[in-house]
Structures are given as C-alpha cells and as structure tokens.
C-alpha cells in the first residue's frame, strides 16, 4: 500500500496555516502564556495520524496542535480554547499545553515525558475494552532522559501493549543541545527493552507513513509496542519568545540586554580561570550559532519537501493550497467573531 501524499500534504498544510495564525494571535497578545508550536514536525504528526482509526488514542506533549488538527478536531473550537474562551475545546480551562478531547481519546500534558505512561495506560484500557485499537505517544528527544519514559518502555514491553512510541528529535531539550546531555543511541535504549526500534527522517512524510504502518498494523494484531526515533527541526524554537531564536533573528537587538551584564560578570575578579571563562563563552556562542544555522535549513521544512513531489500537477496543488488557506482563514474569522461577541456581551 502507498500513502496518499496529497492527503498527507493537505493535513500538514492545515496544521501549518493554523499555527501561523496562532503566531499572529499570540504576537497580538490575544493568546496568553507560553506558546510551543509543532512547526517543523508536521510530517511526523501527519504520517502517523493518517494511520489512526476511530477508537485509537493519542497521548500528546506540549506541542499538541498538529496531531489534534490532523485528527479532525474542529479548528474553531481549538482556536477558542487558545483564546481562553468558554466555548473552547476545554472550556478555556486548559490552554495549548493541556488540550483534551474525550470523544477522540486524546490527552496532552506539559510535563516532559508524561505522554509515555499515558500511552501505556490508553493501550492497557484498549486491551480490555477496544481490542485491535492502539495508542500513540508523541514526545521529544528531551523526554528520553525522564525516568518515567524508560519505565513506560519496560511496562509496554512486558505487557506487550499496543502502544507506538514516537520520539520527535528536533535536537534541542528546551534550550540545551540534546546530544550534550544524552548518552548512547535512542533506538538502542528501546531495543534493550525488547521493543523494535527504527530511526527515520521525520521530515519525509511518506517515509514516516511507510515505516510506521507495519508497526501500527502489528500492534493492532497483538505484536506489542514499537519505538521510532524521527529527526525533525523546530524553526520557531522551544517556544515563541525563545531567547536563542530572538538573538538568531535579530542579533543586535537580541544581544543588547544580555551583553552588558554578561561582560560585567565575565570580567569580575573571582571565578574560574580565563581559560574556563572563554570555554563557557564559546559554548554560549555555539548555541546561538547553531540556532542561526538551523534557521537557514529550509530543506528541512517538511511541507517544502512534500510539495516538491506534487508540484508537477501545479493547478491541482494551487487549488488545494487555496482551499486549505480559506478553510483556516474562515475558522480564524469565526473564532475571533465569537470571542468578540463575548467581550461585547460582557461590556453591556
């Protein structure tokens, strides 16, 4: 079987347009708090969620928007939630890190790694209540160092549960380079628990679909869990407001508040040696440099990658893009209208 690349591209595009609208609303101050986006990891979400059936469960992390949109959650309801509106998906109580849909069996958590035990638990319930259904846990590579993730692998393996672990590796644990705080190969960790594991290019949506399909089918048939280490990028940083991204995009403006105190501190009398200090500074500069380099990696955009394969049918492609754009724009207009109405009612 081959994936429907048109459908996968459409799904990714919907998520991208939605999150671009979120950026704008957040910048305007209409959405509060932190904002973690899934821009850059759409191919992973789209490839996997395309294989999800009615009755399957999703355990999401703090970047839950793409899988939710792709799973068919109403974008208006989702936007209203982000706007903190009582008609939102969670009545305005959850916000972007705490999104739930009971009818779709989707739960999310802002606690790093928490989606893994949740995935295991959903799968356990399936065994009793929904044979043939699976659970999918999405998490970042930063979560791979949480004890509860390793404990979940073990439990899933000894109980042979139908849970698929999807590790989205964007190379950064918050603002720390993951490789600097992570030992060994991630696939080896999963394999050591007896879980089949594969490492794949998470920017290629067809590859994501093709690689996860046999494992998902297998889990439905009682073959137990599987683990996938998928590589992707995060052009918007850990969250909107990420200091590394701010500096990478506007080096002068971004460094200004940092530079004074930094210079003052690094030249203080007591502290480590000159060699030690320059070593520290070098690490900071490297982090900023890597972030800047990542910003230029346009080839790592999963949407661009998928589009290349469709561009030969230009008219069809443009029509689809236009349709999806209109769909999301309409959802944004509707949500804002409902939100405005509420404010007007309140002021009367």
């Amino acid at each position, binding site marked *: 079987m081959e994936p429907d690349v048109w459908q996968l591209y459409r799904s990714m595009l919907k998520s991208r347009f939605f999150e671009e609208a979120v950026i704008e609303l957040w910048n305007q101050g209409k959405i*509060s708090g932190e904002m973690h986006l899934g821009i850059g990891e759409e191919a992973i979400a789209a490839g996997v969620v395309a294989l999800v059936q009615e009755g399957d469960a999703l355990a999401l992390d703090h970047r839950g928007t793409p899988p939710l949109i792709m799973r068919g959650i109403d974008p208006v309801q989702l936007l209203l939630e982000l706007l*903190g509106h009582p008609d939102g998906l969670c009545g305005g109580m959850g916000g972007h890190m705490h999104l739930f849909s009971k009818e779709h069996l989707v739960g999310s*958590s802002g606690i790093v790694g928490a989606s893994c035990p949740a995935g295991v638990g959903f799968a356990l319930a399936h065994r009793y209540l929904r044979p043939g259904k699976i659970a999918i846990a999405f998490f970042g590579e930063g979560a791979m160092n949480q004890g509860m993730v390793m404990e979940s692998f073990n439990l899933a393996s000894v109980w042979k549960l139908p849970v698929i672990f999807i590790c989205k590796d964007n190379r950064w*644990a918050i603002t*720390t380079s993951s490789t600097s705080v992570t030992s060994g190969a991630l696939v080896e960790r999963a394999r050591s628990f007896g879980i089949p594991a594969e490492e794949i290019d998470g920017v290629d949506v067809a590859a994501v679909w093709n690689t996860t399909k046999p494992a998902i089918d297998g889990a439905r048939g009682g073959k137990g869990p599987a683990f996938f280490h998928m590589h992707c990028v995060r052009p918007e940083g850990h969250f909107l407001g990420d200091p*590394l991204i701010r500096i990478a995009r506007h080096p002068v403006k971004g460094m200004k508040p940092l530079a004074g105190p930094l210079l003052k501190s690094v030249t203080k009398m*007591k502290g480590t040696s000159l060699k030690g200090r320059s070593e*520290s500074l070098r690490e900071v500069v490297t*982090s900023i440099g890597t972030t800047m380099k990542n910003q230029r990696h346009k080839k790592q955009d999963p949407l661009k990658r998928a589009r290349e394969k469709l561009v030969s049918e230009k008219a069809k492609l443009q029509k689809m893009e236009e349709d999806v754009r209109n769909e999301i724009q309409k959802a944004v207009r509707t949500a804002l209208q409902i939100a405005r109405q509420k404010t007007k009612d309140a002021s009367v």
Partner: protein
Amino acid sequence: MKTLSFAQAIESALAQAMSADDRIIVMGEDVELIRVNLFSRFGTKRVLNTPVSEGAFVGAAVAAAMAGLKPVVEVMLVDFIGTAMDAILNHAAKVEAFTNGRWKVPLVIRSACGGGYGDGGQHEQSLWGWLAHIPGLAIVVPSTPADAGGLMVSAIQHEGPVIFLEHKLLADYWLDYMGGNNRESVQFDVPPDGAYGAVPDQWGAIPLGQSAIRRKGKDITIATVGVGVHRSLEAATMLQKKGISSTVLDLRSLAPLDKATLCKSVEKTGRLLAVDEDYRPYGLSGELAAVVLEAGISFQYARVCTEETIPYCRAREDDVLPNKTRITEAAAKLMNE
C-alpha cells in the same frame, strides 16, 4: 545601595556566595543559558546543564550535598517538582532525622512558582504549603529583591535542604519568555516594588523564620507571602480609605515560620486575614489560624486563597488568584462581623 531586579538580586547574592565557597555548584535544565552570567564567570565545572531528568539530578544533588558539596539545584517550575518528589520527600527531608542529626543535607532547590500570566493549571501553581507540610524542609518565598538576595545567602548557609520559590511575576526572566518587549500588547500585573528595588552593595544574610512587617495598622493583620504581599499592600491602601487600618505581615518563609510576630500582631488587632496564592485546603492559610489558636489568642479569621485548579483563561485566572478586590472585600467583611 543600588537598584536590582528580583532575578538579578538572586544572581548577585549567589555570585557572592560562589566566589567565597568553591563547594557551591549550580545545576539544572538550561542553566548555561538562563544563568549565563554565572556560567560565563564560574565555568562549566560550577554551572552544570542537566538533561530533563529531575528525578536523577535532584536525587543526585541530595547525595552530593551529603558528600560535601553545596548544590543549588534548579527545578524550572515548581509544578515540575512532581518528578523529583521522591528525592525531596523521602531523602532530602529525612536524612537528618534518620541519622539523629549527625548527617545534614545542605541543598538549595530554586524553583519558579505562581500565576498571573495565562499559562494554565500545570504551570502556575504555588505548592509551598504542600512542601512545607514535610518536616525537614525549609520553604522560602521572597517578595522583594533585597529579601530575595538576603534569603538566598541564608538558604546557602542553612545546614539542611531549602526550597527557594521565586514568583514568576517578580522574576523577570520568566516573563521575558512570554515574548519580552516584542509583544507590547501583553501586560502583566507585576508589582513594581517586588520586581525592582534597592539592595545592599554587599549581601548579608536575612535569617530564615523572620517575618517582615510591611505596613502597620491596628484593625486587622493580613499575613501572606510572595506576590500576595504586594496585593495585600494595595488592598490595605484601599481599606485605609474605608477607615480600616491594616498590618501587612510578609512571612518570608513558611518553614521555619515566625510564629511569635504573627501571634503578637493578631493579639493586637484581634483579626487575621490569611492571603495565600496556594490552594486553600490543608495549607498555609489554615496553618496560620491553628498557630494563633494554639497560642491561646482569641481572634476573628478569614482567608483569601486559590480555590481551584488555575484556569487558563486570563479573566477567570485573575478571579481565582487572590487579588486586591477579593482581599479588600474579605477584610471589610471581617471588620463587620
């Protein structure tokens, strides 16, 4: 004297302590960047980036403290302390008791707490009452830059484990993550005297368990910590216009608790209003009432606390957290009883 932000004051006190004592190390997620000034000055051996492994690095810090280091560990948000709780509850807090006082754990755990910026119920909790419930832990909640620095000096000198909670509306680095000055339409109700203030040129210790009277009045004692201090001071100004004169007592630490000053004040005013951003049941607010009752003082009592899981929706969040309107109303009601 000079003026520093809340976060700068802590950093400055910490830097002073680190330059005097090589055993102090800083560790936690992202500290190379969040504490870039300390990192650049003290280097990779003293400021250690950790993976997202709170259970391991807080647990390791406990034993490292037992073995002679003085770790200052950062748990980014107090809400995330759940994954490290075993190390705190069953180890850091217990070793001194288990060894009959022979072995102590000189550990500081720094953590950001508190709400008022729209992040939702898993990122805006206070939890100090929950932590102060455990014997063997000191719980510090500063409300001004000068206190934050002076209490940090004490926390580092303290022989046992200290949890040092920094309210996000006071610690500006956290609000910077909300977009900083690139998102001008967003306003947070930051108490100006809490976020910036005069600090000494050389840091001295402010003892744990010593409260501060922020305002003196004769009708009612408002006891509180953290941002609650500033909300209560605003309320006290409003109450003054109604002819109600309030004492605002900043407890500064929950454990040890300055029972003497609290009791003395309530004895004078005959009324206690506990203002607590933490959850109401089984917490600081009830503890304050119990302490004064146990001292044999008769008084009238009310409390303004967080009553439920903090809503993401900003308007509802502002109602759920103790605000000056709720404090003023509760105080006025108490006066009429």
